[in-house]
């Protein structure tokens, strides 16, 4: 009886030959990720229960990102508390300002993520790292405290849904459009508690970064994890960053899936998800009226990577951000910022009348650096468009790819990037 990649990874981490969906297991954790918002409560819990050590400081990575550079005194105090605690615990991997970045962009970029790992992070988009063939899932602060203390966590082995993506995407159709279409089809709770496994030639054709965009949004369909089997691109990506050993795990041919969903991406068009749920996707070309935007946001753990910035800069280069529209570009990590600078992308943005910030989660979650006022509308390359997500509960967020966001910055209303040629 075959097993999926998810079942195999989980089985290996609880000392079993095989596991089945629905089974409750205690799995050994290879990597634990913490950021600024969810970690302080975990530290308090550990202290309160007299737990003064972590299970293994080398398996813990801390990356303050939500409210950094510290947006106010309270967030400064939070990061300070984590910094001091990390020192006390002997945790070396603390990404301080200057090496900082959005956690899910930074963790794989810095070589922490390896195929076959079990990873937990105190952030819902921890499912991103499944793009490298790891089991990776988001947890809350109590689970984080338990993980830090013991290096283990209980899981219910998830059922797997297999998404087979065939065909070749048209020009200006990207990973973001694929995942918005998948979520439109399955709904925001269509994969609740489940593992979404992706394969097919459309996945093979994507870069590792593009795959991360897809795995990142598995949670927006309610999934526990998103995962893709590693290939040569994955191995090259990892090898460029670390010489640590890893094992490649793949699903068996006769693995069992709760459902198999096939999709041809050839006919897919640029998508935009309307407020206030990520499954409200529509083809941009189908919009019957102009939807003006006050703000364009290009960044986040979904679409703030170098490829994304190249695409956006390609559209903004030599053009101008429309009058009455603000465009904010946030490279997701320091390395991405530097690379974009070397390639002249930051100049393109600034010359076009956009503004570029230091890496931060910032306005993605309505934290700081680009909050929306009542009644304002933003097209954003982020992953969530819930009520009040980027600011006032009376504001609106539309989700799209960097190309669609950049095209909209130029026209001032939600626009099809395919119309930007020439």
């Amino acid at each position, binding site marked *: 009886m075959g097993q999926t990649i998810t079942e195999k990874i989980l089985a290996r981490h609880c000392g079993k030959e095989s596991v089945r969906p629905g089974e409750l297991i205690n799995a050994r954790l290879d990597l634990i990720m913490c950021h600024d918002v969810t970690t302080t409560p975990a530290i308090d819990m550990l202290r309160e229960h007299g737990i003064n050590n972590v299970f293994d400081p080398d398996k813990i990575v801390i990356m303050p990102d939500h409210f950094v550079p510290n947006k106010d005194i309270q967030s400064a105090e939070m990061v300070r508390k984590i910094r001091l605690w990390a020192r006390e615990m002997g945790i070396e991997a603390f990404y301080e300002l200057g090496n900082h970045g959005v956690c899910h962009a930074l963790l794989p970029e810095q070589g922490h993520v390896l195929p076959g790992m079990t990873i937990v992070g105190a952030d819902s988009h921890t499912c991103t790292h499944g793009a490298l063939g790891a089991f990776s899932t988001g947890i*809350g*602060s109590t689970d984080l405290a338990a993980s830090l203390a013991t290096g283990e966590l209980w899981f219910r082995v998830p059922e797997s849904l297999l998404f087979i993506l065939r065909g070749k995407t048209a020009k200006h159709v990207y990973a973001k459009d694929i995942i918005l279409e998948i979520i439109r089809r399955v709904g925001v*709770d269509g994969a609740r508690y489940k593992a979404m496994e992706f394969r097919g030639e459309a996945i093979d054709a994507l870069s590792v970064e593009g795959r991360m965009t897809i795995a990142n949004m598995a949670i927006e369909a*309610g999934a526990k994890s998103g995962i893709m089997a590693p290939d040569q691109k994955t191995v090259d990506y990892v090898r460029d960053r670390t010489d640590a050993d890893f094992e490649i795990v793949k699903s068996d041919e006769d693995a069992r899936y709760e459902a198999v969903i096939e999709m041809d991406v050839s006919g897919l068009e640029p998508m935009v998800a309307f407020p206030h749920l990520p499954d409200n996707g529509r083809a941009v070309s189908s919009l019957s009226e102009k939807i003006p935007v006050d703000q364009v946001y290009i960044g986040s753990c979904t679409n703030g990577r170098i490829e994304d910035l190249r695409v956006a800069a390609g559209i903004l280069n030599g053009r101008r951000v429309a009058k009455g529209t603000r465009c904010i570009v946030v490279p997701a990590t320091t390395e991405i910022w530097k690379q974009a600078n070397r390639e002249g992308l930051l100049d393109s943005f600034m010359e076009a009348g956009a503004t570029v910030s230091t890496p931060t989660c910032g306005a993605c979650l*309505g934290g700081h650096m680009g909050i929306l006022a009542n009644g304002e509308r933003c097209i954003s390359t982020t992953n*969530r468009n819930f*009520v009040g997500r980027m600011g006032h509960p009376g504001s609106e967020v539309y989700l799209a790819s960097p190309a669609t966001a950049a095209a909209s910055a130029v026209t001032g209303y939600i626009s099809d990037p395919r119309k930007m040629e020439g």
Partner: protein
Amino acid sequence: MKAHVYRRDHINTDEIIPARYLNMDREADLAKHAMEDIDKDFVHKVESGDVIVAGENFGCGSSREHAVWALRGAGITAVIADSFARIFYRNCINNGFLAIECKGIGKSIENGAEIAIDLKAGRLTDLSNAKAYDFTPFPEFAQNILDAGGLLPCLKVKL
């Protein structure tokens, strides 16, 4: 326990406790803003021991456990919903806070109804019309966590 009914599906953690308050992590501070973006008067309406009733996928979105603390801090003792988002559900159990999954409940209970919950029997009763609804009792390991008052007290026993 009085039911505060929100018939919607997909009530998310951004609504339960908006990110603008995540620079705080004390339950009492968070409680002042519970459900603020859905219902401005929520915190004034709730009395200690009340419950929330809602539709599908309650608590979807971010992993912020602040959502559980905000509700608990506001006096809520249980959320009863058609279904829950995964991380929120875990967070509830880990805090010893009741998340009761009961299909169809979001459309059945009237706002303000008095509710009684029998955990062992897996049954909740709407006292205003004596109608009863069955739910699947918690699995043993979850019940153990709930009984211990949360995951950490449970762990401490193990450590």
